[in-house]
C-alpha cells in the first residue's frame, strides 16, 4: 500500500522512538532520616515516598575497640545492614530521595558516604528513648549537615515537652526541634520542609 512506504511515516516512527526513549536523567537530591531502633524511620520514609519503600543492603566496616575485653587490640568489624529508602518526584528534572539509616554509632563511618551531597537530615526521636539518637545528633553536628530533631508523637502523646527534649539533647539554639507523626504524609512533609528551610539557609550562607 501507498502509505506504508511513505518516507514521512518512517521518519515519524524513528523520531518517536529516538525522541521518546532517552529521557533526560533528573537531578537527584536526598534527605537523610536517622534515628535509633524502631523510632519510625521506615514509617517516615513510607509516608512521604511515592513508591513503597525499597530496601538496599550495604556493608559496614568500623574499627571498634572491644569494650568487653579492654585488653584486646582494636578490631575491625563488618556487618551488613539494610537501608530503606523512598522517592518523591518533584518534577521531570528533579527527584527527592529519602534514605532511612540506622542511627547506631557503630554505623557512623558509613554516613560519610551517605551524607555526601545530602540536603539535610531529620533525626527521629522517641521520647521514651531519647539517648538512641545521640550518635546521629553528634555526627550531623560534627559533619556540619543541617538537621532537625523530629519527635515522633506516635499517638499524639509525648512523654516530654519539646523544650525538655532540646535540653536533654543539648543542641544549639538554631537547630529546630519539632513534633510530628510519622504515619501521616502531611506531618512528614511539614517536618521535611523545616529540614529544607535549614538546608536553604546553609546554601545561601555558603553562596554569599
Amino acid at each position, binding site marked *: 500500500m501507498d502509505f506504508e512506504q511513505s518516507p514521512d511515516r518512517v521518519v515519524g516512527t524513528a523520531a518517536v522512538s529516538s525522541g521518546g526513549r532517552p529521557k533526560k536523567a533528573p537531578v537527584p537530591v536526598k534527605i537523610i532520616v536517622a534515628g535509633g531502633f524502631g523510632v519510625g524511620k521506615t514509617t517516615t520514609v513510607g509516608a512521604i515516598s511515592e513508591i513503597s519503600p525499597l530496601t538496599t543492603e550495604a556493608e559496614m566496616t568500623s574499627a571498634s575497640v572491644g569494650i568487653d575485653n579492654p585488653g584486646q587490640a582494636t578490631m575491625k568489624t563488618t556487618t551488613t545492614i539494610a537501608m530503606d529508602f523512598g522517592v518523591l518526584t518533584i518534577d521531570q528534572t528533579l527527584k527527592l*530521595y529519602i534514605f532511612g539509616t540506622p542511627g547506631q554509632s557503630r554505623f557512623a563511618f558509613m554516613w560519610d558516604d551517605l551524607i555526601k551531597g545530602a540536603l539535610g537530615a531529620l533525626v527521629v526521636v522517641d521520647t521514651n528513648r531519647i539517648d538512641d539518637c545521640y550518635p546521629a545528633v553528634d555526627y550531623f553536628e560534627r559533619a556540619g549537615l543541617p538537621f532537625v530533631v523530629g519527635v515522633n508523637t506516635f499517638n499524639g502523646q509525648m512523654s516530654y515537652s519539646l523544650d525538655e527534649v532540646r535540653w536533654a539533647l543539648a543542641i544549639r539554639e538554631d537547630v529546630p526541634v519539632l513534633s510530628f507523626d510519622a504515619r501521616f504524609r502531611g506531618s512528614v512533609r511539614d517536618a521535611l520542609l523545616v529540614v529544607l528551610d535549614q538546608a536553604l539557609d546553609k546554601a545561601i550562607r555558603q553562596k554569599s
Partner: protein
Amino acid sequence: MTYPDPDDPAHPARPSVRPFLQSGPLPAGGYRPTHTDEQPPATEQTTALRPFVITSGRTDGADPDIGMETQVTASPGAGPVRLSPEMRAIVGLCFEPVSVAEISARLRLHLGVTRILVGDLRAAGQLDVHVLNNETPDPETIMRVIRGLRAIT
C-alpha cells in the same frame, strides 16, 4: 530473600570477615575456606551466587562518583556485547533513568556490588552515569524541592 531488620541490634557483626562474604548464604558456623582442589559435592545446589563472585572477588574500588542516588541510564549507542546475567539485568532496568540504590533494591544486589558493576558497565560504554558537577546543592534547587513538597497533599 529476607533482609535483616535494619534496627535489629542483635544482628551479629562477625569480626574479620570480608563484607561481601557476609551477605551471601553462609553455612552454619560462618565462612570456612575450603581446599582449592576440593570439589563441592555434585548434589549440593547453590541457590544464589555469593556477591563477591559476581564482582570477581572485588570488594572495593567502587567509583566514589557513584553514589546511592546517582542516576543511571542505558547508553543509547551501546553495541551488543556479552554480559553476565547480573549486568544484563542492570542494563535492562536502565531504559529510563534509575538510581543506583533502586537498581540494588530491585535486583536484590548488595549495594557495594551494584556500585562496582555499574562502574564496570560505565567503563564498557553500556551505561551512562550522570555525575553531578556541583556536589553541594544550590539554593535554586532547594527552592524547587520546597515548592514541590508544598504542593503535595
